[in-house]
């Protein structure tokens, strides 16, 4: 143990000395961010901030506080508190004028600070997190040993890397000492769980404990960083941010096949893809350089990040309303994930506390607003994967086009892969008896028509349309402008497709320009039924019309588009007619549009570089530019939080003036600069730097002194001690018992779950128990249904993933105990663990000791062994008296004996121990 010596006394002296200096020797300069801003936020900004500007007075932006309010008086007159209306209104006794109007009066200290601040010139300062990240000096041990007296030898030798210099400095300031390194087994379990989400194997523990080389720990860290489980562990974190789920959300909450995005994240973490590249791919992968007319599949799949927004398939809902809701979610999520800033409030008004104005929200939204997804039930646009022969056939079609009209190849290839650009039929105006079936798709029946406004037919000679009909002999006629016969464009004999959607290719004459098109239907049969049009697309016809194979080529084109293919929702930018204008929504209401805005970033942060495109790709590059003051800090803090259970900024989601102050601001900045500059955004290097530190390696044991001085371990005078995450609780039980499947990737799996958990109105989707090892996959792969996530995961604080969630607030509830006590998943693990224990020893003492070792890698204390023996004996006696119970408690394996049953009960106890479900 390290000794505290006499530092306490010295600390008192320092405090005394420094307060002395504040009060007199030097004039104390009021710190705007630390002292003034909190007072303004607490007392003033509610009425004089981003939400309200009562009396035309606001303290949100610097210029505002210096401008006269409605009364003509100036709130803040620099250098003269007595002339400042703010101070007068705070001090006055007139109840009509006294500020704050309905709140508690300011304290004397608060008034003093404000007065002094104004007298000193009312200097305005940008909030720390919005200033460029500069690399701070690493505190040298010598500097603070001078301040605090000589460091004792243990402490001087404690630091392992720069991180420790920063933390030790804080510990000294707080009169705390670091803890010694955790024992090897504990440390290995901690670092294994942290880096791979899985506990170590017994062999790994034994190798490490017997490795006495100086770099034994580093070897372990390197091995863990290379493990394929590494990517799986960090993907769990990322999926909460990406609000990844296997269903679409809202009322219907039907399935969505977007698991390829999850696999992309696993692969990216495993490949140590630089975080800036990882960011750009997810936000703008569709805009990255193309090869053969297409961005790479990997880059497109990455854009699944923002296709994890919910989709409302309920009948009668407005697609536009929910398209807009998805856009808003993308803006809010991007800000929360990369900028650690709550942007949601700016949707309705300027930020209440931080200087971001209302219209800046919509300027930012303009970057996202051009994507082709429009909340239609088929989740389009999707990237289609043609399998087997079909992929050859697609290539043949592309080759056909390329050979005859190379200029057409790119558009043609893109249409084959993502079926864009196309017009969704909710764009039709419903006139002449047509309808929107289910509020989603155009429906036409005998003698009815719908109108498509402003279709651009310039250069278009073919219409690709998705139709579904269950009646015979209906004819769809398309005319320009009116229902006049002269303006005829096409007449289509609609086949009876038995209601199935079928893609038809219809030649159309050169019409030119933007046209309003009328679609009308005639059918001979009664009773008449609706013909459904889901989407259509005007294109240049496939070249080679005169060649004999042409009809076959067109037929193949139609067949391949009709056939369902595996696919994944992606972002796809709309261009030309398909680009959108973005308007401010007045008070956040999407129906009330204000001024049009162009894409831009808030002035709070550095300006968009001139050479960046004004699109999502430009935005993504701006986010990961070295000049962005937030990204580096926010991302480094997220990883830190995952390891220590608490961020350097505790509010990982809010770095604004309402968020928590960083506990180690210099360390955060130093880590951020190292991450961006030295590590070139490589996450593995960042994580290695952190886990190699002495700070991380400390024992998590604590004592009354530490608890009293630092109950939440803000200053890290001990190692992290945090309950395992929902996924880890499950994965560990499966791993320790040998049930865990190592299989990676693929569609979500359905492990055992009680009946009647899934009750989705309208959708017939069911939880079907997966087969074989798929029941024992890592929690990461469990099918995630937003309205009904896997129950034991929710109990252990996993979110529903409807929205981005930065932190899982850990709870400690009786429902968690019920899961690990009684959920069959944990009972099976207990039985399997018991079977393994039985093989390890002859006596129950030996078996229990082994079981404890398998879970904790430690020898059991005699006291605790006695406790376990008591459980074992009682259970054994009970099962011997009632052998029928043996079969009930052992439903999984082949062996049935009272001894195994008693061991299973004991294993059930061990799987519930605090030190087992906690990372120590």
């Amino acid at each position, binding site marked *: 143990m390290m000794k505290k010596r006499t530092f306490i006394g010295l600390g008192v002296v320092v405090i005394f000395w420094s307060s002395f200096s504040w009060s007199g020797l030097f004039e104390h300069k009021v710190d705007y961010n630390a002292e003034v801003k909190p007072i303004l936020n607490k007392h003033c900004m509610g009425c004089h901030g981003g939400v309200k500007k009562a009396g035309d007075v606001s303290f949100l932006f610097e210029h505002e506080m210096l401008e006269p309010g409605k009364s003509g008086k100036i709130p803040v007159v620099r250098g003269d508190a007595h002339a400042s209306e703010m101070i007068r209104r705070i001090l006055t006794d007139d109840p009509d004028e006294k500020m704050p109007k309905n709140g508690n009066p300011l304290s004397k200290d608060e008034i003093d600070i404000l007065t002094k601040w104004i007298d000193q010139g009312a200097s305005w300062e940008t909030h720390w997190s919005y200033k460029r990240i500069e690399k701070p000096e690493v505190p040298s041990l010598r500097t603070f040993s001078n301040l605090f007296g000589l460091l004792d030898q243990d402490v001087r030798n404690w630091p392992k890397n720069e991180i420790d210099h920063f933390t030790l400095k804080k510990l000294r300031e707080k009169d705390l000492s670091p803890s010694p390194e955790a024992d090897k087994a504990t440390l290995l379990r901690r670092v294994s769980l942290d880096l791979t989400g899985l506990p170590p194997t017994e062999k790994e523990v034994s190798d490490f404990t017997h490795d006495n080389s100086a770099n034994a720990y580093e070897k372990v860290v390197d091995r863990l960083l290379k493990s394929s489980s590494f990517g799986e562990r960090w993907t769990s974190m990322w999926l909460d941010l990406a609000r990844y789920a296997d269903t679409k*959300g809202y*009322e219907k909450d039907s399935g969505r096949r977007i698991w390829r995005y999850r696999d992309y994240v696993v692969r990216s973490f495993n490949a140590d893809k630089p975080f800036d590249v990882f960011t750009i791919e997810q936000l703008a992968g569709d805009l990255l350089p193309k090869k053969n007319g297409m961005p790479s599949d990997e880059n497109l799949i990455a854009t699944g990040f923002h296709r994890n927004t919910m989709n409302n398939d*309920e009948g*009668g809902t*407005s697609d536009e309303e929910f398209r807009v*809701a998805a856009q808003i979610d993308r803006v809010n999520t991007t800000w929360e994930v990369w900028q650690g800033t*709550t942007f949601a*409030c700016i949707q309705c008004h300027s930020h209440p*506390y931080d200087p971001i104005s209302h219209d800046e929200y919509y300027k930012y939204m303009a970057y996202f607003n051009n994507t082709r997804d429009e909340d239609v039930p088929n989740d389009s646009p999707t990237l289609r994967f043609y399998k087997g022969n079909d992929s050859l056939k697609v290539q043949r079609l592309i080759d056909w086009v390329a050979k005859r009209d190379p200029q057409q190849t790119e558009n043609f290839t893109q249409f084959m892969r993502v079926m864009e650009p196309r017009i969704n039929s909710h764009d039709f105006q*419903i006139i002449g*008896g047509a309808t929107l079936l289910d509020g989603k798709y155009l429906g036409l029946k005998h003698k009815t028509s719908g109108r498509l406004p402003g279709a651009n037919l310039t250069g278009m000679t073919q219409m690709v349309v998705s139709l579904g009909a269950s009646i015979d002999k209906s004819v769809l006629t398309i005319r320009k402008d009116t229902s006049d016969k002269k303006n005829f464009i096409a007449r289509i004999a609609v086949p009876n497709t038995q209601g199935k959607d079928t893609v038809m290719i219809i030649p159309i004459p050169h019409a030119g320009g933007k046209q309003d098109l009328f679609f009308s239907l005639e059918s001979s049969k009664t009773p008449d039924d609706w013909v459904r049009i889901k989407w259509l697309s005007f294109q240049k016809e496939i070249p080679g019309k005169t060649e004999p194979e042409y009809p076959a080529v067109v037929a193949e084109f139609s067949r391949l588009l009709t056939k369902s293919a595996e696919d994944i929702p992606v972002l796809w930018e709309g261009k030309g007619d398909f680009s959108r204008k973005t308007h401010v929504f007045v008070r956040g209401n999407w129906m009330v549009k204000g001024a049009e805005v162009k894409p831009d970033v808030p002035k709070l942060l550095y300006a968009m570089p001139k050479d960046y495109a004004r699109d999502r790709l430009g935005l993504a590059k701006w986010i990961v530019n070295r000049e962005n003051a937030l990204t580096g800090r926010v991302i480094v803090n997220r990883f830190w939080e995952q390891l220590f259970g608490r961020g350097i900024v505790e*509010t990982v*989601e809010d770095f604004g003036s309402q*968020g928590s102050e960083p506990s180690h601001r210099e360390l955060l900045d130093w880590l951020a600069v190292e991450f961006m500059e030295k590590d070139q955004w490589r996450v593995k290097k960042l994580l290695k730097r952190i886990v190699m530190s002495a700070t991380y390696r400390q024992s*998590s*044991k*604590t004592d*009354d002194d530490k608890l009293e001085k630092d*109950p939440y371990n803000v200053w890290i005078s001990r190692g992290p001690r945090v309950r395992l995450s929902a996924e880890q609780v499950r994965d560990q039980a499966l791993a320790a018992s040998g049930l865990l499947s190592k299989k990676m990737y693929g569609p979500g799996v359905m492990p055992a779950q*009680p*009946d*009647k958990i899934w009750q*989705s*109105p309208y959708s017939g989707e069911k939880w079907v128990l997966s087969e074989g090892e798929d029941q024992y996959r890592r929690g990461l792969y469990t099918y995630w249904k937003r*309205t*009904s996530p896997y129950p034991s995961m929710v109990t252990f*604080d996993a979110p529903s993933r*409807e*929205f981005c969630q930065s932190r899982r*607030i850990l*709870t*400690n509830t*009786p*429902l968690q*105990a*019920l*899961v690990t*006590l*009684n*959920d*069959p998943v944990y009972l099976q693990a207990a039985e399997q663990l018991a079977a393994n224990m039985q093989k390890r020893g002859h006596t129950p003492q030996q078996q229990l000791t082994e079981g404890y070792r398998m879970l904790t890698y430690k020898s059991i204390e005699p*006291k605790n062994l006695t406790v*376990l023996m*008591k*459980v074992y004996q*009682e*259970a054994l006696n*009970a099962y011997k008296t009632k052998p029928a*119970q043996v*079969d*009930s*408690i*052992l439903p999984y394996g082949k062996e049935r004996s009272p001894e195994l*049953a008693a061991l299973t*009960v004991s294993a059930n*106890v061990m799987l519930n*121990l*605090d*030190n087992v479900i*906690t990372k120590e």
Partner: protein
Amino acid sequence: MENLLKELQYAKLEHQTRRHFLQSCGFGLGALGLGSLMGSCSASSTEPNASDKSVQSGIPQFAPKAKRVIYIHMAGAPSQLELFDYKPELLKYHGKDCPAEFLEGKKFAFIQGVPKMLGPQGAFKQHGQSGAWISDYLPHLQKVADEISFFKAVHTDQFNHAPAQLLMHTGSPRLGRPSLGAWTVYGLGSENQNLPGFMVLASGGRQPDAGKSVYGSGFLPSVYQGVQCRTGGDPVLYVSDPSGMNRNMRKTTIEAINQINQQTYEDVKDPEILTRISQYEMAFRMQMSVPEVMDVSKEPQFILDMYGVKPGDGTFAMNCLLARKLVENDVRFVQLFDWGWDGHGTSEQDNVEGGLRKKCEATDKPIAALIQDLKMRGLLEDTLVIWGAEFGRTPMQENRNGLVMPYMGRDHHLEAFTMWMAGGGVKKGVTHGETDELGYYGVKGRVHVHDIQATILHLMGFDHEKFTYPFQGRNFRLTDTEGKVVKEVLA
């Protein structure tokens, strides 16, 4: 502030747990209420101490009239025009085209073009001293009319089930906000040491459209979410011991877990371990008390008859009886959902004639019984019973896809619908609000969903404008930025 809260809660918890261990009383005598385990902001069954008082000051509160709530939600939305809002004029317009003024600028879920008006299908009379209008769909409720106060002109902003249910229960049509029950338990804690403070019972074969979020905890800690009691299998997930393990053995195992955890605590001093120890005790007690409270076999026959239930039938009627048992055991908030009220006229079940009558037959008697039963036990005084849905139904007949529906049906209606409350702090026999002669708009006493919520919170002793929780840099409240307490119905 957040830290201070945590610190005080922790201090209290540790104090209690230590004391508990000093007493070494084993099981069943735990000094901890769930409220304190959940770190609720006010003291519950445990004696107040200094930390409680300072924490309490965080939530503005006055003496509550209602200590418990039973909230009955008819998911799908029954027709107020068949049940409570008597509109003889509407009968005269039956079959006529809907006036243009009702359609201009309006959006409906399914109605298209110009629909026809649909006259009331029920026979109405006034009932009780108060003269409340209740139709022949609800013969039993008629008898307790004088206990009830009606809101006849409630309006909402959402015309689809899921968002409208979310608005009703969380104050926002989007997901992610805490529900009324979660707010309540967060604010008041729980008075029962063996049961969760917020319990949910669903009937009608399906969950509410908006899923678990309608009783979720949103950004409040997850301990405040509603715990759903299921009608089949375990009443609470995993509450049953595995087969082959009896109670004694479970007791032994939990004692062992806690003993070893106590050792770990002595060694590493992590206070979270103390919480875990008390949560395992709570789990053990819940294993007893949940099945116990869910078991109606000991109820006398006349009570079963009064509600119209057979043990184990999993019906809405059973849930009403269970709701009474739960509040009797001091569960703070009981939420009932019944599915299948979406009377569009599309099928034999979903209409406002026979289909609605059937749903009423299954629910009318137990609801009336619940009110009488609570009254009989002296619980109605401080138990608030709320009845309502996510919206109402149109005075027009639905014409989905421009077709004539096979049954009489109505579309979702936002402008005016009926809710009622009875018990804790509510006047008896008042009718607040009135709709126009066709039942389309509220013309007097219009109240928004947020006003209903403000009123409920008021009855529970909260100022809805000051009852907030800081999240993502903003103070959130149930009523968002709106809501006025409907003073006219306060007793």
